[in-house]
């Protein structure tokens, strides 16, 4: 009786164990210290992706310490009580593995891609990182410069490198989404050793993390190993601060011109949107596809192909935990007036507000979504990350298999309604990026 109960519960928890080949099967459980663990078994290649997602990103930073979460991500490769400075990556690479990490507005994600016989090594390394990472002043000073170089490389020295930075800065007044994860030079210079210690104690705790492992593993054996390395890590004792205020909609139009050295004019329009996982978010995301996914999308067809105003048009939705932004931008052809580009973009936004899209166009969007869903589960590393994402933000890892239904439930009317609600003048930021090196916006 008891055994029967357990297995039936397991079956509920692992809905896909008997399912079709495309369904991603997984097991999940919590340790006593609050660490959530997700395991996905796939023996096709002898590799294992060991990943840890911490629920901390740039939105958890305080004014004057922008860039802290990402800076700290760098420092967590320095070593631990048992791992000497600089040895962390060496263990992984010597084992024939690869490793890296990245930081977004909402989370920090570490991954080790290992031959499957080195699974335990990955668990040891990640548990050391969570339990007693060691950060020395030499490491802080070195990584401070490395991170500043990363900012120069990716933002300051790139054409239109300030695109997102300026957009966020103009769009957000109360929410910390107003700065990008890389932070500002001033804040990077200001960060102190004590800031890192506090940051570690507050955010790098098992109850703020998801350990997601995928690949050539057996769940039973892996559970024991997870327990072995992670069970002793104490639960965090500090309340984890999260931003309390969310950015309101319809704050009135924000409009500005950003001067720079890039030759072609770029026109960007950003709109405030609901948080990921909400019904309207899916409608907005599909509107985005309608506008700029593929050569036949509306902005590309109109601005690039028919009117020949732009070199390309693109749209991008920030998949953020809190209400964020969707943005569309067009890089103008040489000599084209940015106002003309903006008008053409607005014409397309207005069309979606007044006319229902055709059945065929609706089917196109659904087919595009379906293709994306199938394609993104191609690697165990991708699966491990998706499972962790769904659990962390939406509280439900099974959305890896079912989120597509939420997209498919979006109707033509939903698209029109979403356009009317969010793609409005009062709800937008319009930025022109224009060439004038002498007036460069600092």
């Amino acid at each position, binding site marked *: 009786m008891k055994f029967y*109960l357990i297995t039936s519960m397991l079956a*509920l*928890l692992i809905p896909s164990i008997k399912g079709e*080949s*495309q369904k991603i099967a997984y097991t*999940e459980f*919590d340790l*006593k210290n609050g660490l959530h663990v997700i395991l996905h078994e796939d023996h096709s*290649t*002898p*590799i294992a992706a060991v990943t840890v997602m911490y629920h901390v990103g740039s939105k958890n930073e305080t004014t004057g310490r922008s860039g802290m979460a990402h800076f700290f991500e760098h420092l967590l*490769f320095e070593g631990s009580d048992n791992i000497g400075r600089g040895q962390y990556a*060496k263990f992984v*690479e010597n*084992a*024939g593995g*690869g490793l890296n990490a990245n930081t977004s507005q909402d989370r920090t994600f570490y991954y080790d*891609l*290992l*031959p*499957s*016989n080195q699974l*335990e*090594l990955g668990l*040891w390394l990640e*548990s*050391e990182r969570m339990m007693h990472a060691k950060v020395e002043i030499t490491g802080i000073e070195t990584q401070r*410069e*490395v*991170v*500043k*170089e*990363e900012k*120069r490389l990716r933002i*300051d020295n*790139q054409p239109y490198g300030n695109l997102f930075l300026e957009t966020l800065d103009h769009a957000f007044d109360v929410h910390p989404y107003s700065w990008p994860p890389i932070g500002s030079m001033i804040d990077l210079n200001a960060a102190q050793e004590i800031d890192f210690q506090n940051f570690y104690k507050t955010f790098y705790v098992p109850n703020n993390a998801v350990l997601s492992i995928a690949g050539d593993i057996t769940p039973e054996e892996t559970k*024991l190993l997870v*327990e*072995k390395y992670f069970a002793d890590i104490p639960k965090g004792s500090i309340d984890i601060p999260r931003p309390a205020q969310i950015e309101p909609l319809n704050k009135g139009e924000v409009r500005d011109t950003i001067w720079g*050295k*890039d*030759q*072609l004019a770029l026109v960007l329009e950003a709109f405030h949107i609901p948080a990921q996982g909400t019904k309207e978010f899916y409608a907005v995301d599909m509107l985005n596809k309608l506008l700029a996914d593929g*050569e*036949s999308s509306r902005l590309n*067809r109109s601005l690039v*192909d028919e009117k020949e105003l732009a*070199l390309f048009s693109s749209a991008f939705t920030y998949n953020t935990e809190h209400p964020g932004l969707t943005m569309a931008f067009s890089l103008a*052809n*040489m000599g084209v007036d940015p106002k003309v580009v903006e008008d053409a973009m607005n014409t397309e936004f207005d069309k979606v507000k007044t006319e229902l899209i055709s059945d*065929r166009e609706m*089917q*196109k969007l659904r*087919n595009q979504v379906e*293709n*994306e869903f*199938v*394609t993104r*589960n191609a690697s165990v590393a991708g699966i491990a990350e998706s499972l962790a994402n769904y659990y962390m933000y939406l509280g439900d890892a099974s959305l890896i298999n079912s989120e597509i239904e939420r997209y498919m439930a979006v109707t033509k009317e939903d698209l029109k309604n979403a356009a009317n609600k969010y793609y409005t003048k009062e709800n937008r930021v319009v930025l022109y990026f224009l060439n004038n*090196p002498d007036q460069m916006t600092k």
Partner: protein
Amino acid sequence: MNKFSSISILIFVFILASCKTGVKVDRTHAPLAGPAPKIQIGQYQMTKLENGLTLIVVENHKLPRVSYSLRLNNDPISEGEKIGYVSMAGDLLSAGTAKRSKSQIDEEIDYIGASINTTSNGVSGNCLKKHMNAFLDIMADITLNPNFPSDELEKSRKQTLSSLESEKTSPDGLSEKITSVMNYGNNHPYGEQMTEKSVNNIQREDLVNYYNLYFKPEVAYMVVVGDITFDEAKKQTEKYFSSWKRGSIQSKKYNMPAAPSGNRVVFVPLSGAVQSTIDITYPIDLKPGTQDAIVASVLNNVLGGGGFQARLMQNLREDKAYTYGAYSTIAPDEVVGFFSAGASVRNEVTDSSVTQILFEMERLVNELVPDTTLQLVKNILTGSFARSLESPQTVANFAYNIQKYHLPADYYETYLQKLNSVTPADLQAMAKRVIKPGNAYITVVGNKDVADKLNRFAASGKAEIRNADGTEFVDIKPAPVGITVKSVLENYINAIGGKDAINKVKSFEQIGSMNMSGMALDVNIKMKDLTKFKMSVNMGAMELMSQVMNGDKGFMSQMGQKEPMDEAMMADVRQTADLMSALSYERYGMTATLLGVDMMDNEEVYVIEFKRPDGTTSKESFGVLSGLKLRGESVDGEGVLSVTLYEDYVTSSGVKFPGKLVQSADQQEVTFTFKEIKINPKLDDKDFIVE
């Protein structure tokens, strides 16, 4: 949901389980690895269609999708004066067919949620299995019946010109350009760079001809990967591609470009840059699929192949914090490969970074790589080989490479053995062959203020400041108000003696010597009646070379071999003969623009650009203070830049002539020094006879 209860039950189970193990964790040492898993390479199947098209299939039924990649194995093409047409032909394959317009193609591809990409060397894309027939129908149509509509060409031209403009602020884009120009030269397919002019030269028939000549089934491979059986893929390929007609393609050979004889520093200014993009590079001869290529890849991973343990990463990032990342590449290639090592670093540490990269290169040549390092790199490469097998595309690429490079069938199955056989001595021998810290182009894209600090790395002692296309960089400020083409040229005429004095010069003769690569020759230039011209170069009594023009016709003769002058050359000579040509450039069909004020060896000069009727341009620089012409620069039809410096002006009968001319083109330098200049001498008409 039942989530909470089920989790608590699970936890209960695990606590029991962990009690059973009851072992205290030893955290002080890394855990031991389990037995190494067997690395298995997936299978592929291959066949050839009757028209010569080769089909490679890798079945993988994990996800319900299929990818198709049609690859043409053609030699690269030199595009001459129309650089850009080959890539444009590739882009425009999907811009219309006999059956479908571009917008129909776009819509049909997007409708099935698929994507397709066309290049000059093939067509590729992927789709869900349920859409594969619809997808192939479009893919085959694009591949077999493109019609390159003129309006789509014009649109593409406009976009290409815009993107040329937008690339000017991209440090990576500029770096890529300058390194390929330096490594391969302007006349090699790998070195040719699109320009506004070359893009404007492209005609629809260039695209059509390219397609007709190079899109042939016998050089094509159809690589199919995914949720499909071999038989299905074969039937599909036969159905859609068996009508493709054979045709023969000529193979092309190119000269192997050489590394420079000493280090050259080539600096491309990018105003406002906050980093220097450094690339130390040169061409190498290294063929893909050889044991040498495997040894070179191990060597590259020791130096900077991407891992955190690589020497460049440890030195420039982890130790010195100069950069976010420092990397190297040793790329084998059938035509010509390259070495590259570089990093993007903050301006202040540009020279220090170059020093460290060169230091790491030298270490590879001078020291044996320790066994532990070699083993680490072998582990890294074994691991990444194993991980790459997760993607079925990898197996398909292996199959394709075996065909393309004529590798033994077991090349990839025995790859790990070959990798493991590499010794430290092999690495050093390879380093001596491909690591050249003294024969490199040290290219840097960055803030111009940084350039001077790099002089010491150049064998010549001087960093060359260039544009990304390899031409000399001219840093020009706008000219003050009131200065015009006319005022600069009139000022020049006054500076060399004034209209009256010049108009009195009907003939002149310059006698002097010419110095080229350490060889001194006599040179004599005669000009008569403003239209007749003769230049001869002699060694003692023997005439080596001459150019003669009688006004209407001319010839060039070299060691007795005569050749008529072409119209462009005669136009040049006429202008040389006409001392007042500066004021009458319009008579020669030219237009002129004042570009602004530039610096030339601490002297300010006005720069005027002249455009000839054939579209070629030249620039001339005139001293702001002296008014004299100090420099001329022109690019010929083949893109070769020649520069002339006018120095040591001397006065003869009230008119100033340059006593010395220094001409350089294509890395050759010629100096003319005139010891005597005769005005209105008695010249014999017989000297100017052209038969």
